[in-house]
């Protein structure tokens, strides 16, 4: 084959690749990128259709100076951080506990992953029937003689500490992270840990210096995904959260659907803050992993 032929063959192959990619790229650019740009333009008060041709930062100024927004940002960060931290710790514990069983029996694996298939909406409704002051836990507390009235039971749904929301996230995300950790544990086997133990390492030392470094490359991305997801999730705080302060996604939705159309640029500004934060988390994570993989 001549050099010239080889070159055109390469060009043809390249063309084929881009042809295969075009439909997907079109969807992502038109809808996702287009939606982001439209939101950004609106958040900057740029909307030529109704004669707004001078972009400005008024909406961002209004939002950042608004106590409702700042409290919402704090609540959202608190919920995501707490839920991610608790889920990660529980997931590692559960994975270590389940490891000997899961490797032998697929059924355990299936049962552990079962509630990955339960939508968050269903989980949230279940949690509200379980933990609200008129719920099952409260009724059990009364029949055990611990409380007299619903109001005696601590508020766990629509409460100031967002316990209902955090419980729902922990309940749903622990198996998600746990399965990632289990997959790593299963693939590396127990040889390294046995070696450490036989060389005289204690249980804690083995966990700290052998097991943890092995699972971290899977644990960290899974936790980052959970943080980014909980930061932008709408359904669970919508069902289980307080009206005020609420999380950023619910706040953005409410301002957008407000009868006062002037609130729309502010809704867009809030949604840009959500998008920016998740992009920031992910790029920080990517930069970190690149740093470490370079060593």
């Amino acid at each position, binding site marked *: 084959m001549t050099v010239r032929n080889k070159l055109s063959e390469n060009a043809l*192959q390249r063309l084929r*690749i*881009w042809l*295969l*990619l075009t*439909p*997907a*790229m079109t*969807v*992502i*650019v038109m*809808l996702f990128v*287009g*939606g*982001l*740009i*439209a*939101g950004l333009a*609106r958040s900057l008060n740029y909307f030529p259709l109704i004669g707004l041709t001078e972009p400005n930062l008024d909406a961002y100024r209004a939002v950042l100076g608004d106590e409702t927004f700042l409290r919402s940002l704090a609540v959202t960060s608190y919920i995501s951080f707490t839920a991610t931290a608790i889920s990660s710790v529980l997931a590692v514990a559960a994975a270590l*506990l*389940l490891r000997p069983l899961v490797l032998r029996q697929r059924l355990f694996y*299936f049962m*552990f*992953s*079962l509630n*990955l*298939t*339960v*939508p*968050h*909406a*269903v*989980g949230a*409704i*279940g949690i509200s*029937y*379980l933990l609200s002051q008129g719920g099952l836990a409260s*009724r*059990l507390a*009364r*029949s055990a003689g611990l409380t007299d009235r*619903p109001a005696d039971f601590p508020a766990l749904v629509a409460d100031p500490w967002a316990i209902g929301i955090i419980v729902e996230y922990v*309940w749903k995300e622990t*198996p*998600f992270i746990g399965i990632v950790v289990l*997959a790593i544990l299963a693939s590396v086997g127990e040889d390294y840990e046995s070696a450490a133990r036989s060389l005289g390492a204690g249980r804690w030392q083995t966990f700290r210096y052998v097991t943890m470094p092995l699972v971290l490359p899977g644990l960290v991305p899974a936790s980052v*995904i959970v943080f980014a997801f909980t930061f*932008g*999730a*709408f359904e669970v705080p*919508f069902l289980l959260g307080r009206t005020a302060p609420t999380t950023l*996604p619910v706040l953005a*939705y409410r301002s*957008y659907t407000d009868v006062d159309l002037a609130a729309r640029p502010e809704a867009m500004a809030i*949604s840009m803050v*959500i*998008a920016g934060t*998740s*992009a920031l988390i*992910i790029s920080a994570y990517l930069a970190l992993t690149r740093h470490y993989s370079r060593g």
Partner: protein
Amino acid sequence: MGLLLIALALPILPLAVWSVSFRWFYPDVVPSVWSLEAWVAVLSPANNLAAATADTVAVASLVTVLATLIGVPAGRALGLNEFPGKRVVELLILAPIVVPGVAVALGIHGLFIRYGIANSRLGVAVVHLVPTVPYLTLLVSGVFANFDTDYELQARSLGASALATQRFVTLPAVGPGVAVGALFTFLISSSQYVLTLLIGGGEVVTLPLLLFSFARSGENAIAGALSLVYIAPGVVALWLSSRHLSGNSAALGGLQKL
């Protein structure tokens, strides 16, 4: 161990009990009057549930067909080739998975009003492509990464046509993975709440929207029964996929989106 599995099932328990209760007032630990009324209502065809089911299935089917036609070629290109610009393409595909739906949906709503597809099933189906196409592309690229194209070359050199090669060589190899991806695409579409609410504008009422309205108006029995109906397909999908895609993290990532 047992405790862990009980904790995982705990939020489902009250849903199940509510679904078969007629009267269940505080402080009763079990319902005082049991009834199958909620199940009859959920499973009988003649009410707004049937309309919601029809909307859900219509939207999710369209999404599954479109996402498969769009995502499978892209997954093939990504899974089999190294090429300049691949990192940018991968970043573009990851971005919609990472950035929350609410953040883009508000902007998309403005665009759809201009194109005249807001408040319609078509608009809802199109917006569902945002979470599903990237997911399916990633999953399929994983499937193709394990596929050896030499089999296709061998079939061609033995005289098979391009179509016959796809039908008898490529499809049997990647079919199960693609099928699982399509199944999860259907599930992801049928469990979207906020995208459907915003773009559908109340005109397109799918099952998750109906479930929320029952739950928020305190119709616990119906909400309980509907929740259980809603869980069932996902469990079946998990069971099927655990055979074909054991340990495929992309498939699990899809479940995470539910």
